[in-house]
């Protein structure tokens, strides 16, 4: 849409109007209120101009790197591979997760209950109790790193520090109408282990959804053509700059979850960024001006 002819013409028309309005205003007698006018109108003109030129000249690529590898090729949105004037080595990649959560699901559909407003409980410690969709739950054990061994009749959940270990919570569940509480392990599994559900009765089970991601970060070493190397940490919301390029934490191998050894970066180069920022900061100042000065009093 933003590359269509009508859109480009509309942008051009807007810029022309803005430019002419600014020129016309500058020929008349100036007052202090004109400061606000120029900040807002010239700021918008500059930001729009930089944005339009930037959208034509900007380069955006993604780069997928495995732990220990060095990469200098990025792929464009079109899938085309491009060599870059810089290389990135992925030293380590880390994911932190939030505490596990428990939900009650309907056995037949797998949907979370109550259907109208699903409830969930975030783990706060062994011995805690909670009410979820009419089920009373007590957490009796917690294994942050667990291995699951099972065959058709037997299942064993044991603590194990290993790649691919999963999170497991042992819970006791009771609800009105149930002869006696059921107790057992619940886990959300990993790429190695399938998840475990604790069946309460014919209709419902306790389940653990995938843990939400708290933070993911890549420790990298960057190399440039003129021989400069730099070690840095890249996180979401904390990109780094290497020469003209901004490097962003973009994604990871989500099939392996927290055991991902692959990090995906986005590299962006926008030669017009400074122009756009100039416009943005003028507009910010213009907005403050509007807020403080308010509308012009009409002579009544």
């Amino acid at each position: 849409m933003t590359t269509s002819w009508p859109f480009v013409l509309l942008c051009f028309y807007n810029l022309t109007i803005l430019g002419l309005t600014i020129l016309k205003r500058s020929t008349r007698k100036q007052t202090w209120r004109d400061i606000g006018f120029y900040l807002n109108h010239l700021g918008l003109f500059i930001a729009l101009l930089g944005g339009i030129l930037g959208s034509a000249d900007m380069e955006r690529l993604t780069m997928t790197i495995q732990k220990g590898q060095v990469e200098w090729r990025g792929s464009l949105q079109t899938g085309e591979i491009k060599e870059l004037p810089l290389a990135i080595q992925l030293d380590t990649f880390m994911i932190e997760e939030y505490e596990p959560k428990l939900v009650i699901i309907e056995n037949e559909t797998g949907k979370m209950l109550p259907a109208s407003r699903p409830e969930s409980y975030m783990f706060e410690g062994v011995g805690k109790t909670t009410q979820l969709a009419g089920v009373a739950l007590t957490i009796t054990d917690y294994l942050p790193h667990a291995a699951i061994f099972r065959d058709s009749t037997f299942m064993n959940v044991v603590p194990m520090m290993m790649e691919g270990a999963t999170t497991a919570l042992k819970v006791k569940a009771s609800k009105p109408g149930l002869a006696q509480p059921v107790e057992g392990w619940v886990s959300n599994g990993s790429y190695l282990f399938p998840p475990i559900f604790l069946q309460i009765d014919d209709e419902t089970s306790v389940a653990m959804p995938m843990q939400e991601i708290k933070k993911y970060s890549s420790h990298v070493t960057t190399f440039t053509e003129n021989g400069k190397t730099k070690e840095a940490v890249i996180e979401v919301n904390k990109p780094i700059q290497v020469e003209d390029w901004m490097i962003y934490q973009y994604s990871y191998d989500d099939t392996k979850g927290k055991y991902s050894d692959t990090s995906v970066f986005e590299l962006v180069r926008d030669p017009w960024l400074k122009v756009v920022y100039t416009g943005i900061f003028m507009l910010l100042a213009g907005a403050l001006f509007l807020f403080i000065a308010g509308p012009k009093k009409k002579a009544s």
Partner: protein
Amino acid sequence: MTWDSFIYFAIISVLLWGSGAALAYVSKHKRWPALLTVAGLIVFSIFIAGLWISLERPPLRTMGETRLWYSFFLPVAGLLTYLRWNYKWILSFTTILSTVFIIVNIVKPDIHNKALMPALQSPWFAPHVIIYMFSYAILGAATLVAIYYLVREKKINNKAKLMEMTDSLVYAGIACITLGMLMGAIWAKVAWGHYWSWDPKETWAAATWIGYLLYIHYRLKKSSSDKTSMILLIIAFILLQICWYGVNYLPSAQQSIHTYSS
């Protein structure tokens, strides 16, 4: 403090705001209505602060949490307008609108949990959303004035004063909308790699912004009609509603990177 205790704080706040608004009609001095409104705001802000602490993150992620701030800022906008322009009806209007949003939060709360996805973990998060909620409240107050005008057009004595107040509200509102939008752009450059991505929320934010710019520029015309100006304000406020939550119900929201309410 959790959402379970919200109803108690809400009832006390609404009672305080309501008595302040009622007093505004009878009291000669502005002191008592103002003090009661401020007392209600203090009670309400204690709940927001408690929720913030118990969630261990700013309560700004879900729709319900933004409604909470909106309910808080409406009486703020009403109070400022009342103190500056002396309209005694504005406090009751903002109290009623705030109560509507409080009731929505009591009847239909969102799922609230502690998780804050990495993209939202930024110093820009709180100012970006809070300033937007503040501007929505001010522009909500301006919309109430517009409705008041359109309903009672023939009975209003001093139209010029009312228009002057409306202009003031819109200028303050669009200043905050602009600040919120530009802070969002600077944050987006840091978080998503580009300052403007034509995300549905961004597109509607731009439409809302243009809507209020239209009002401002139309009002600068010497031959502008007050009625048309007020209608423009209502249209702009509809755009604002689509931007705030309406966009979540549009098919384009499926690709939006601005939806965070799981």
